[in-house]
């Protein structure tokens, strides 16, 4: 311990209180709107007609029943979203993992630019190419089909996945792979038995995040869908347009339903997500 500057302890205390205020404020700012919404979905809404303002009671689950009937085909929309997001995530992670491994174990000039280029590609708004994309899928008869929407969604997030997985693969010690190779293991064997287990936490965390991104993707599904492949964001945007005066409880129930699957997933995967990093460094757990 070095020499302490004067007022060190007071500064320390001020620091602690500042931190508590910042974190407390942030948690409130993040959770209150959400709690407000969940309460509204249960028909508990502010009643500002009298003073002091109260809340409407009793709670009811009627809005949830209503949503299932009011938004056309909502159960089907939920199922479409789920299957589509899982498929697109598997496609993204699968192709990105193979490509990232290839890049991570390949030495060539300009590799850094190629890897960083994937990040630049990931930052490109999908709006840039979605209009011709919808035309292209129509021409090859993939528009409004499961395969078309799944492939196009997978392509949106593949560059980001390559960048992140490359970071994880860079951290894997090569010695293990070389030992396996010397023992005569082929490429497939090395990848599935040695590399994949070594990056499993990073792979899982990336998959969870890509799943959430897919679940929430709006532009690609809406541009590629007429009727059949409506996902939750597409259905929400059709139904709850800003022009229409809609019932808040009803909308709140739809929002809660759309959040529920990803919220459950993230709670289940919280230990993996806590160790997620966009650019992992050596010595970090999960790398």
């Amino acid at each position, binding site marked *: 311990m070095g020499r302490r500057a004067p007022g060190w302890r007071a500064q320390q205390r001020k620091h602690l209180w500042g931190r508590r205020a910042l974190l407390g404020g942030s948690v409130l700012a993040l959770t209150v709107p959400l709690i407000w919404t969940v309460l509204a979905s249960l028909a508990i809404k502010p009643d500002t007609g009298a003073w002091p303002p109260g809340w409407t009671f009793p709670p009811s689950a009627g809005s949830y029943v209503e949503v299932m009937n009011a938004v056309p085909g909502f159960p089907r929309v939920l199922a479409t979203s789920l299957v589509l997001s899982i498929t697109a995530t598997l496609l993204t992670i699968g192709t990105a993992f193979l490509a990232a491994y290839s890049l991570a174990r390949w030495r060539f000039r300009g590799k850094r630019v190629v890897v960083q280029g994937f990040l630049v590609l990931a930052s490109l*708004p999908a709006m840039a190419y979605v209009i*011709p994309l919808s035309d292209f899928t129509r021409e090859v008869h993939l528009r409004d089909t499961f395969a078309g929407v799944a492939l196009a969604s997978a392509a949106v997030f593949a560059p980001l996945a390559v960048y992140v997985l490359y970071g994880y693969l860079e951290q894997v010690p090569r010695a293990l792979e070389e030992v396996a190779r010397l023992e005569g293991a082929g490429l497939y064997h090395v990848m599935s038995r040695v590399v994949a287990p070594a990056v499993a936490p990073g792979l899982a965390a990336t998959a969870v995040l890509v799943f959430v991104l897919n679940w929430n993707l709006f532009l690609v599904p809406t541009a590629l869908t007429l009727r059949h492949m409506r996902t939750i964001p597409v259905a929400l945007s059709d139904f709850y347009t800003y022009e229409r005066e809609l019932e*808040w409880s009803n909308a709140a129930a739809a929002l809660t339903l759309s959040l529920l699957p990803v919220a459950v997933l993230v709670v289940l995967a919280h230990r993996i997500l806590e160790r997620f990093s966009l650019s992992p460094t050596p010595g970090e757990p999960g790398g």
Partner: protein
Amino acid sequence: MTPRQHLLLLLPLAALLLPFLFWPAVFGLASSFTDYAPAERHLHVVGLQNYAATLENEDFRLAFRNVLVIVLVTVPAELGVGVAVAYSLRDRFRGRGLVRIILLVPWLLSPIAVGVMWHFLYGSVGMLSYLAAWLRLPAVPSPLALPGWALAAVIATEIWRKAPLASFLLLPGVLAVPSEQWEHAMLEGVPLGSRIRQVLLPPLRPLLFTVTLLLLGDTLGTFDSVLMMTGGGPGSETLTPALYSFQQAFKAYNWPIGVASAWLIVAAVLPLGLAYLALVRPGDA
């Protein structure tokens, strides 16, 4: 591995990206110099006419000005809040894991859902009105419908949506800063500002660049949350270029203008991407 194996492993990704990303992008760029539209039989090269028409359009200009304001306010705010919150999560304490997961909450909602949610929360059933009722103030109208206030409300929503995510993504970088260094600087009485500049930022730099680029790209493409909150209104006060492009292509079926305005967004993103490539040092990858 042999070069052939390397290429073989890259093949699936290429098979996905070539038709579903690169081809539409290149084809879109090429078609923006023509009067191409899906139903059109004959194709005419029109040069820069689509771009000229887009740039002359009053709404589009306003949209570009709006997105510029949004970027200049939200991205620094998101990074600032992100670093500050990540920094306060540096030390272990009870409930830290929970706070970390709560940071993901706004991002778990789709931008569409966030738009619908804040459309209502700014209105008569939201927190502001409830607060006003407690204080016996007259009912406040939704800022989303108030000329002069709508853009500020949209900006607040965007910060709510993305600052916590920035914090979540920056946290590993903040945790990687050796805490002895920080404590040492604090014991020496180095003021907070220079402590941040000298101790925190250098190791955080690569991750900060990465997050900044992702935020910039995402913000320049802002449209789905705005679509649900205001639809670009009142007037065109909250219109963004991506929303304009979306409306032109999918609502007005004006493809050439839609594509040209989309490529004007790319023209704004690409220099940022190139600057990123130039700024990131070899050791940073």
